[in-house]
């Protein structure tokens, strides 16, 4: 009975490793490599083309001195927080309503979900039009005789971001509803029965029992929405182009404009690095909770 030798660790699961090469390459080259590259060049004064002429944190100083960047950040914060709250609330409400064993559930669900199939470009265009003061809602209401009615979010710098949010919610709540519905369907049937026997009203059951139980679903949803919010770009471009003025500017657009229009790559990279940092602040704790704890 001679002891067989332990095979080399490298060749264990060799097939799995080979199959994971695309993933490893993507992770290393594209995500790590690309990110590092971006961060490094954010410390240079690259203009149209990337050049390694380091200027320290000058780009960052300029970034935070820029009114436009501040507006972008504010807008993203307002949009982000409100659309997080609203899409969770609306998504959950719709899911809860659909969960009442109603008729035509499929129809309603399809109606709520279909905007998700459309691109932001399409969404932006349609809502731009609906919110157009001449043809859209304001025009109609005024046409009905209410002359002083005013609803022109896309042309009013103070509320333009809410106009964008209306469109964003229209497109995004369907998916949230879907996730919530899946979560609700995963709740043990007996919990509902127990709550009914205990005589707990429906809304209390949702609020105090079901929602806390759906924590993981909420977290997953939150992360999905958040990742979308950070990337907010197409919708703004299609709906307002950042206007009126710079009132609906968002960071992703700032990055794009500085990299390509202003031909100031360094500035664009600095802005993207700030975005990455924000993302890291959101994602790392989540990733830790989600994947770190389990292994």
């Amino acid at each position: 009975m001679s002891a067989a030798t332990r095979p080399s660790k490298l060749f264990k699961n060799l097939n799995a490793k080979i199959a994971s090469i695309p993933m490893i390459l993507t992770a290393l080259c594209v995500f790590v490599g690309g990110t590092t590259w971006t961060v490094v060049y954010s410390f240079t004064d690259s203009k149209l083309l990337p050049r390694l002429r380091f200027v320290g944190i000058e780009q960052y100083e300029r970034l935070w001195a820029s009114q436009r960047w501040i507006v972008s950040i504010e807008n993203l914060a307002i949009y982000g927080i409100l659309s997080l709250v609203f899409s969770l609330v609306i998504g959950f409400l719709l899911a809860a309503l659909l969960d009442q064993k109603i008729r035509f559930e499929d129809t309603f669900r399809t109606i709520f979900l279909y905007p998700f199939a459309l691109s932001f470009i399409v969404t932006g265009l349609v809502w731009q039009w609906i919110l157009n003061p001449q043809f859209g809602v304001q025009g109609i209401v005024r046409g009905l005789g209410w002359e002083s009615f005013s609803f022109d979010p896309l042309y009013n710098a103070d509320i333009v971001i809410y106009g964008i949010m209306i469109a964003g919610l229209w497109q995004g709540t369907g998916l949230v509803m879907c996730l919530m519905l899946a979560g609700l369907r995963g709740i043990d049937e007996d919990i509902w029965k127990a709550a009914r026997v205990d005589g707990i009203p429906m809304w209390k059951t949702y609020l105090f029992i079901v929602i806390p139980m759906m924590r993981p679903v909420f977290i997953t949803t939150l992360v999905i929405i958040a990742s979308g919010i950070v990337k907010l770009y197409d919708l703004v471009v299609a709906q307002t182009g950042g206007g009126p003025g710079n009132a609906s500017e968002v960071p992703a657009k700032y990055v794009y404009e500085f990299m390509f229009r202003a031909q100031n790559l360094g500035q664009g990279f600095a802005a993207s690095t700030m975005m990455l940092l924000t993302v890291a602040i959101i994602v790392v704790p989540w990733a830790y909770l989600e994947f770190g704890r389990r292994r």
Partner: protein
Amino acid sequence: TDLEVTHWWTSGGEAAAVAEFAKAFDATGNKWVDGAIAGSGDTARPIMISRITGGDPMGATQFNHGRQAEELVQEGLMRDLTDLATKEEWAKLINPPTLLQNCTLDGKIYCVPVNIHSWQWIWLSNKAFADAGVPVPTNWDEFVAAAPALEKAGKVPLALGKQAWQESGALNVLMAAIVGPETFLKVYKDKDETVAAGADIAKVFKAADDARKMAVNSNVQNWNEATAMVINGQAGGQIMGDWAQGEFQVAGQVAGKDYTCLPGLGLNAVIATGGDAFYFPKVDNADISAAQETLAHVMLSPETQVAFNLKKGSLPVRGDVDLTAANDCMKKGLEILAAGKTMQWTDELISPDTTQQMNDLMAEFFSTPTITPEDAQKRFAEIIAKAD
């Protein structure tokens, strides 16, 4: 040979003009592959630059000459046209000579200017003023004075697309017209911040404030939609470059009868000689190189120049072409050009980065009534101080 040409000329007049290039080029036995990208130069340029830096260059591409392509040239990505230029003696043909200078870097020529565009125009709708019962103004001040009457008649006095480049363009036009080319150059060429903060420029910002008030009800984005408002008499006028003329032409309007144009806003008839130029990225393929040369040649040929510029509403780059067919407004331009009353424009003077900051400022100014002209001027001076 197929040659892909990218540009951002997609509005009615522009497209008609491009068609002339394509026709002339196709006639040489090559094929013009059109790569139009809609949504103004701001959208198109990044794509063009990525293509060139990404190693998949097009055959030729439009840029505004000036500093937009500077780095691409420095990086050696653009083809050197000096040989062709010497052979065809562009230096003699092209007028004013600054056009060719703008294509030159370290003594080498890298682009073909195709037209002269000037920003300093205001386009007025004769119909709108007739409706309002006031005479068509002859300069900016009269225009401002006529605004209340227009408003009363349910018109928008000033049509202005809500895009930053239009707004900052309007400011620059006002500046050139109100304070004259010298002060303009002090600000933009010498980057003299005391001038920028001074009393002269304060007048300009006051005028911009007027413009802002007059344009409050102008709910359009693209410049040609604003032009459309002038064309159909909804708006009194629009500050826009001479490319707007193409739109009037496509709409079948006649200069002097249906619309009026005032170079230099009727105050200071000087025009800038900016314009469009074509660059030819370096390629390995000999066929394409040959086609590039052909295109460069075709673009400068007298017939093409006439046909193109008539459609486009811009001025030809050669002084030796016959433009009898030109309309009222073009003739005004040609006269100013002939008189040598030209000046440099911001494209040549400040970097895109500074332009962007200007744009940001003006976008904010025009959309935020609470920003006073004084505030805006102060920030303007700061930008000029740091400009490059």
